[in-house]
Each structure stands twice: as structure tokens, then as C-alpha cells.
């Protein structure tokens, strides 16, 4: 015991004797105007854009406006403790966040401070919050799939690693649920996930974290949380900070999935800051650079080429629409920036079609290139069948007056819609998805009643797990349906159908 005591005292002595008292020279300014989390400061003649400032009581701020004799800054934290006339010190560093493996499994605020009470985070490195997106030369086309585990998405609107796919829909349509499912499904896929909660209720963040823990998904996830009660400046920083944390893993050559939940609140936070800084308002009172704000954020999602380590960042931004209006300012902006959108509709949600995916309006502009061959084989037919079904759906009431082929189309469509339904927190492996979709698309399920589809599907997966292990393995390994496995699969389906119908 005394040994360690002596050791500590020795170390202290060493540090103190090594400490040199010197006069510190600092660049300072004085607050002349203060309110609502925004400060106008005189002095600070050498301030940089996005430089960190130190206010009294260890509160930090960020320079956003550089004017003739004033500096406009936002305060990250509790601004009620700061008053006019206070001294502000410049730090000479642009805003940075800690990055590293230590962050995995933690809930942190946008500045990297722990929020989960699990102790201090030792940062390996600091990354600036704003970084330039990788250039063309360093990139590679999206070429491998990111399995979300959701049948409807993996089949119809596939997402590739390095893609930016927007999840858009009204409130209560299951946007977050979709993203959480995607995160849960990355458990064995060697993908790090970053979930950025912007302006959400503290209770829903807690719920999300609890769910992730329940499904063992926190082991590969970082949650960057900025709740509704925190200042708008933190909400503005949050997605950029999350992206920097993701970039650390990308730079190590790993694949990252980042979810921004949601960017409409982020836009609102940025609007607040901009208006307080007296930047001129534009459409819907958003500032002129709101498009650039989101485009430079989403541009940082990328697939790097082999020389750069081959890492990737896949971004799933979420946008909440008001009454299904996707032609509002922020939704159109983000739709045009991303490589496709997953459109969720409340009507579908209440009809019980969950995920409430509107297959007609949802697209993926690059993901299909990355789809596994096996999935491609079933997905093509699925897309076509569903499109035809949508055309004919209006005639469904007169089903008895229709000719045979139309009736068959409608029947097929009903069954496919049923198959694409999926419970929350139940992501499905690709091989299972391929098997059930193969059965549905090729008409093997046409003679099973629509209301029994769910039971059939559940039973079929169990049957496959028991009897079709080799088949599943080969589909997973080759990512293809070979002729041999196709006949095997057909046999399996007809065998199980017999069991099911008896």
C-alpha cells in the first residue's frame, strides 16, 4: 500500500517539478450581446470559422459568423450561466470530437461526453466535426449489399454499402423502427452502427437504447443523443459529430451504418441558429445554405476504393413529413441529395401493412447493382408482379366479374403483399428471404389462403432451419440459386405445403 502511495507522490513531484510557470498569452474577446444560445463578441480578431471558444465555467461555443468587428458564436451547453461582458477565450482549434473504439456501446452527447454513466471515454484521436467528403479518386462504386434484414427493402429497394438512402414518412409510420431493425441486423455482418438522435424525446431515446441492448445490438453501436431539451446548437452539431465518429472506422477500412434521426429537426435547429444570428431567411424561413448543410453532411457517406482501405459509410437519413407532403422544402432537398428513398405511408400503416412501404414511390438508385444474385433473381419478378397488382388493385371489388388472368394477378399481388409484411425487431437473413420470396413469386403459394400466409411463412422458415440447412448454407455462401439448389428448394416447398395443408 505504502509502495503505491510513494509511487503516486513521486509521480506527482515529477510532474510538478517539470511544470514550468510561464505567462500565457491568449486571444480574448468580450460578449456584447447574448441571448437564446447565441453570443455576439468583440475582439477575437484572429477567430476562425468553426473555431471552439471557451466561455466562463468551462462552457464551449463555436464561431459561426465572422463580421467586421463582431464574431457571432453559438453556445454549446447551458447559456444561462453566461452574462454580457464576460471574457471569451479562443482555443485556436476547430470544433473536434473524440473518436475511437471506446465509443462503441456508449450513449454520448454530440461533443463525445458520456451520457450513460458508464465512466470516462478514453479517446484515441480527435476528428474535426466538419470534414471534406472523400474525392472522386478515392471512391469506388457501391458494390456490396448492406442487408437491412427487412424483406421488402432488401428485395425491392436494396441498400448498398456506401449508399445514402432516405427514410421518409409522416409521424408514426415506423421510420425509426425500420432504422433500428437495420441496426439490429448488422450484428453478425461486421458493420459498426452510429445512431444519431436529433431533437428526440429523452424517453424515446431511452426506449431505443433499451431495445438495442435487448437485442445485443449495442455491442456494435454508438448512440449520439441530443434530446429536445438540449440547445439547438448541439442539435446542429450532432449529425456532423456522429459522421466524424463513423469516419474513424471508415478510415480503418471498416463498414459503418449511420442513421440520422431525424434531419427535419436538424434543419429546424439550424434555422433557429441562423435566424438568431440574423442571417437572412429564405423559403419556409430556412437560411440560404440549408441545402449545402445537408448535402455536405450526406456527401461524407461513401465507399472507398482498395487503396484507401475499402471502408464505407452507409447513411440512412430520416425525414418526417407533414401530412404526407413530400414536396415541402426539406424533404425535396434531401430526396434530391440521397440515392433513393424509402417512402412510408400512414394509410398503409393503418391497413396493417408493416413496414408501411409505398413500393411505387420508393426507389433505390444504386443499391440494385449491389444485390446478391439470388435476390436479384426473385426481386425482378416481385417488382413486376407488385406493379401489375397496383394497376389492378382498383378493380378488386369486382373480383368475381374479372377474367381468369386478372384474378390470378390480383391473387398473386395479395399474397406478395402479405409475404412482405414483417414484424418489428425480427430482421431476417438473406437466405430465408430468398427462399420465401422464391416460393411466393413462382406461384407456389397461390393456393394458400391469404389469411394463412403468415402461419405458412413462420412454419416454412422453421422447417427450412430444420430440414434445409444445407440449402440455406449454399445459398448464403454462393449468394446464388444454382439449378441444384433450385430443385431442392422446390421440393422443400412442396414438402412443407403437404405438411401445412394436412
Amino acid at each position, binding site marked *: 500500500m505504502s509502495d503505491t502511495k510513494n509511487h503516486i507522490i513521486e509521480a506527482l513531484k515529477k510532474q510538478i517539478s517539470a511544470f514550468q510557470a510561464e505567462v500565457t498569452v491568449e*486571444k480574448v474577446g468580450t460578449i*456584447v450581446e447574448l441571448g437564446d444560445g447565441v453570443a455576439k463578441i468583440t475582439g477575437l480578431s484572429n477567430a476562425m470559422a468553426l473555431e471552439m471558444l471557451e466561455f466562463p465555467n468551462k462552457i464551449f461555443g463555436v464561431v459561426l459568423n465572422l463580421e467586421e468587428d463582431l464574431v457571432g458564436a453559438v453556445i454549446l451547453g447551458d447559456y444561462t450561466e453566461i452574462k454580457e461582458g464576460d*471574457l471569451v477565450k479562443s482555443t485556436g482549434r476547430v470544433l473536434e470530437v473524440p473518436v475511437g473504439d471506446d465509443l462503441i456501446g456508449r450513449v454520448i452527447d454530440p461533443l463525445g461526453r458520456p451520457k450513460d454513466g458508464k465512466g470516462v471515454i478514453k479517446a484515441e484521436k480527435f476528428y474535426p466535426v466538419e470534414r471534406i467528403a472523400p474525392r472522386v479518386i478515392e471512391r469506388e462504386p457501391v458494390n456490396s449489399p448492406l442487408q437491412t434484414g427487412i424483406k421488402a427493402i432488401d428485395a425491392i429497394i436494396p441498400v448498398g454499402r456506401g449508399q445514402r438512402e432516405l427514410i421518409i414518412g409522416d409521424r408514426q409510420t415506423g421510420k425509426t423502427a425500420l432504422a433500428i431493425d437495420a441496426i439490429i441486423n448488422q450484428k453478425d455482418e461486421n458493420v459498426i452502427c452510429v445512431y444519431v438522435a436529433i431533437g428526440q424525446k429523452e424517453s424515446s431515446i431511452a426506449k431505443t437504447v433499451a431495445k438495442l441492448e435487448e437485442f445485443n445490438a449495442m455491442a456494435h453501436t454508438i448512440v449520439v443523443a441530443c434530446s429536445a431539451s438540449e440547445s439547438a446548437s448541439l442539435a446542429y452539431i450532432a449529425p456532423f459529430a456522429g459522421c466524424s465518429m463513423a469516419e474513424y472506422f471508415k478510415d480503418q477500412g471498416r463498414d459503418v451504418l449511420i442513421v440520422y434521426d431525424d434531419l427535419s429537426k436538424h434543419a429546424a435547429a439550424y434555422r433557429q441558429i441562423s435566424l438568431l444570428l440574423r442571417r437572412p431567411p429564405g423559403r419556409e424561413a430556412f437560411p440560404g445554405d440549408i441545402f449545402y448543410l445537408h448535402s455536405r453532411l450526406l456527401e461524407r457517406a461513401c465507399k472507398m476504393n482498395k487503396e484507401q482501405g475499402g471502408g464505407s459509410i452507409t447513411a440512412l437519413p430520416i425525414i418526417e413529413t407533414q401530412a404526407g407532403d413530400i414536396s415541402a422544402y426539406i424533404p425535396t432537398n434531401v430526396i434530391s441529395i440521397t440515392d433513393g428513398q424509402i417512402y412510408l405511408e400512414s394509410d398503409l400503416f393503418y391497413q396493417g401493412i408493416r413496414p408501411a412501404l409505398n413500393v411505387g414511390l420508393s426507389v433505390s438508385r444504386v443499391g440494385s447493382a449491389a444485390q446478391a444474385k439470388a435476390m436479384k433473381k426473385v426481386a425482378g419478378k416481385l417488382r413486376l408482379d407488385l406493379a401489375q397488382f397496383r394497376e389492378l388493385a382498383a378493380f378488386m371489388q369486382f373480383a368475381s366479374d374479372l377474367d381468369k388472368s386478372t384474378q390470378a394477378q390480383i391473387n398473386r399481388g395479395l399474397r406478395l403483399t402479405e409475404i412482405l409484411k414483417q414484424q418489428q425487431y425480427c430482421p431476417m437473413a438473406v437466405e430465408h428471404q430468398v427462399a420465401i420470396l422464391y416460393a411466393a413469386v413462382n406461384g407456389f403459394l397461390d393456393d394458400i389462403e391469404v389469411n394463412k400466409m403468415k402461419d405458412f411463412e413462420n412454419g416454412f422458415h422453421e422447417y427450412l432451419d430444420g430440414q434445409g440447412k444445407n440449402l440455406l448454407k449454399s445459398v448464403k455462401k454462393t449468394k446464388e440459386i444454382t439449378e441444384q439448389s433450385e430443385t431442392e428448394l422446390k421440393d422443400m416447398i412442396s414438402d412443407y405445403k403437404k405438411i401445412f395443408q394436412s
Partner: protein
Amino acid sequence: MRISPKKYAVAFCEAVWDAKEKDKSAIIDNFVKLLTKNNVLSSAGRIMTEIEKYWQEKEGQTPVNLVISRPLSEKFFHDIKEQLSDKLKREVVLESKEDEKLLGGLILRFDDILLDGSVRGQLDNLHNKLL
């Protein structure tokens, strides 16, 4: 166009600087009238600070804030003033303040530079270093 307090200050100082003694009160009168007309009397405080700043600059003076821990002799102030004027190549107007929390040493502040040579500052530094 919105005219900034600094622009008002510069305009006023330039007008008064070379004016004859008898014209000065008329200039001040006109300036206040202008402020009233432009509806900026509410920011008169800011304009006054800017005028003061600009005036001092024009006279070649630099205000320096000095914080010390305990009362010191006249000679000390004189020496500091002398040395600073020498270094800055400008006339120095010293404003001093006492603050016991400093414990010892002094803090100098001019323009936007802060020189912290206080014992309190050193202790804070040591504290940060040890943590």
C-alpha cells in the same frame, strides 16, 4: 442601408477632429439630430463606446487593463506604463483593478490579447496538467 455604430463613430470623430472650437457644439447638435432622424438613439451607448475607442486610437493611445492582487506603489505603475509604451510603440492609458483572487502576479489586457502572469492562472494550468 443600415449604418453600423462604428460608422457613426468614425463620421462623428472625423467631423469634430478638425473643427473649430465654435463649430463643435453645432456638430454635436447635428449628430444627435441625425441619430434621432435615423431612429438609432437606442444604440447610442454602442456608438459612444465606439467613439471613445476611435478617439483613443486617433490620439495614438491604447487602453490597457491591469489586474493586480494588492495595492502597489506609484513607481510600479509608472514602470509598467513605460515598458508597455516602449513595447507597443504607443501611448498607454492604464486602468488598474485589484482582485484578491489573483493571489499574486498580474494580468494585462489590451486590444484582444490577454497576458496572464497571475499565480491563480499558474495554479489553474497546473491543475489542468495534473488531471
